[in-house]
């Protein structure tokens, strides 16, 4: 597939994953409202009212509109949680990695600054600010939710090993993340993930929630975590009983409601893992997309291929870069090569696709590999 076809494919896959995610969230949220809070679609009920003037009781048909509070509140809490990451993400990320602005007096850093300017022209974007991370392991990342307020940072280790062509490939990959609004996308996804985990935490009594809180303390940025509410609403399971009673009102036989309830419970328990898997799948798609867009910007996929090979062969984790921004880097900074191991866990949970697959895709763009 050429550079344009690969971009279309990746964008399409992203949309499919997002739709799945939203449906998953709606299933959980509305199920929560239905089974736990006893929400039901608009019902007509008979209400008795007392009229003091004539001192009589009469029956009135009243329309009750139930609002799915659980879903709405979870969504709002998730948005608030990710809002802080949205506004402060760039500042926090730069501070946590110890990055400093590139110095035009140093010849290597001047070359890097020049390359950032060139690729910004090729992308039609305002020039991002160039930062250097003082780490000997080669890696790079981009951050900033707005196109005119972004940052591209590379480690000193990267500047030492790359030639100009390879450095241009790496900078183009990071510029692609900015151009495709990937930071914005991933920050928005954390809002959904936060909402999902909130609902899950409420139902399972905080067990899963506490696990998520532990993740946050390890420095998950700018995905701001949500603490699960302890002591959930397990007692509200009583509401499920009456829900199945009211199942008749919703027009479905009770055994269907019971099956749906069981499915919903399973999903709730698996929710944190499922939402992580979905987020990581989106992250991998965006990495492929960034590779394809980088090839379009430089019109030189070989530069990026040789850059990736050099970066992967330099073993060792990039300690300065926390795992919270792993999805924004060019390879996983944890250095555990999770994406290289075969098996379901790494296929689903890795932030980046395996290197060989990325190189094959790039070679297809350079017409050096059939199909792919």
């Amino acid at each position, binding site marked *: 597939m050429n550079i344009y076809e690969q971009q279309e494919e990746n964008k399409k896959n992203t949309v499919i994953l997002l739709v799945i995610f939203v449906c998953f969230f709606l299933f959980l949220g509305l199920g929560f409202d239905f089974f736990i809070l006893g929400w039901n679609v608009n019902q007509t009920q008979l209400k008795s009212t007392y009229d003091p003037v004539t001192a009589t009781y009469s029956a009135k048909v009243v329309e009750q509109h139930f609002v799915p509070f659980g879903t709405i509140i979870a969504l709002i809490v998730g948005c608030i949680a990710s809002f802080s990451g949205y506004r402060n993400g760039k500042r926090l990320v730069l501070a946590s990695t110890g990055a400093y602005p590139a110095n035009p007096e140093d*010849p290597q850093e*001047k*070359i890097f600054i*020049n390359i950032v*300017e*060139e*690729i910004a*022209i*090729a*992308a*039609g974007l305002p020039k991002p600010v160039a930062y250097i991370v003082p780490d000997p392991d080669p890696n790079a990342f981009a951050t900033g939710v707005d196109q005119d307020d972004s940052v591209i940072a590379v480690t000193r280790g990267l500047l030492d090993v790359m030639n*100009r062509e390879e450095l241009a490939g790496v900078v183009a990959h990071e510029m692609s993340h900015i151009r495709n609004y990937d930071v914005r996308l991933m920050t928005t996804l954390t809002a959904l993930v936060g909402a999902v985990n909130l609902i899950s935490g409420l139902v399972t009594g905080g067990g899963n929630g506490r696990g998520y809180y532990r993740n946050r303390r390890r420095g998950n940025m700018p995905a701001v975590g949500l603490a699960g509410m302890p002591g959930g609403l397990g007692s509200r399971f009583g509401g499920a009983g009456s829900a199945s009673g009211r199942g008749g009102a919703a027009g479905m036989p009770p055994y269907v409601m019971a099956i749906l309830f069981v499915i919903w419970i399973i999903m709730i328990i698996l929710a944190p893992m499922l939402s992580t898997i979905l987020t990581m799948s989106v992250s991998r798609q965006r990495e492929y997309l960034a590779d394809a867009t980088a090839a379009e910007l430089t*019109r030189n996929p070989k530069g990026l291929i040789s850059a990736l090979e050099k970066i992967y062969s330099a073993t060792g984790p990039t300690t300065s870069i926390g795992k919270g921004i792993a999805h924004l880097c060019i390879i996983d900074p944890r250095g555990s090569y999770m994406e290289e191991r075969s098996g379901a866990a790494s296929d689903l949970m890795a932030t980046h696709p395996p290197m060989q697959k990325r190189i094959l895709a790039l070679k297809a763009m350079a017409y050096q590999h059939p199909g792919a």
Partner: protein
Amino acid sequence: MIVSLIVIVVIGIWLMSMYNGLITLRNNVANALRQIDVQLKRRHDLIPNLVSAVKGEMKFEQETLEKVVQARAAAMSVKPGNMKDLAAKEGELTAALGRLMMLKESYPSLKANEEVNKLMEELTHTENQIGFSRQFYNDICTKFNTKQQVFPTNIFASMLGFKPEELWELPAGSPERENVKVDLSF
């Protein structure tokens, strides 16, 4: 009745967004065309100044180096046995060498080699900028033309006054398409 109203509103919104999209792209195309000239002017203004600055550095060092070479030649041409003359010429050589040492110590970063490297990088950078700005112009032209020509926008595009833009290309038979000959011999 309500349905037809909704349909009309939806079509109206679609028409508006299509028109605005085409206007934005047309302006982007015009901007991209002018950006090429921005880079060309930058090259025109910057490179001659850089080259003369480097030449000046090289000349400054070259003069000092020449004096050293001359002093050394003079010292070597002294007839053997003429100690006074030799001492005088060696003294001049020492003085010239001293000036060279002082040059290197006072301005350690102004070695001509480094200046030439900086000039090379700046030349590469300038040419890359010009190339990328032409590439971007062609990319955004293509995007604009494609957007005008797909269905159903193509029905309205020419009505609203949009026409396809020309991409940048070298004129037919341009010598710039030839292979460049690199000749490093003296």
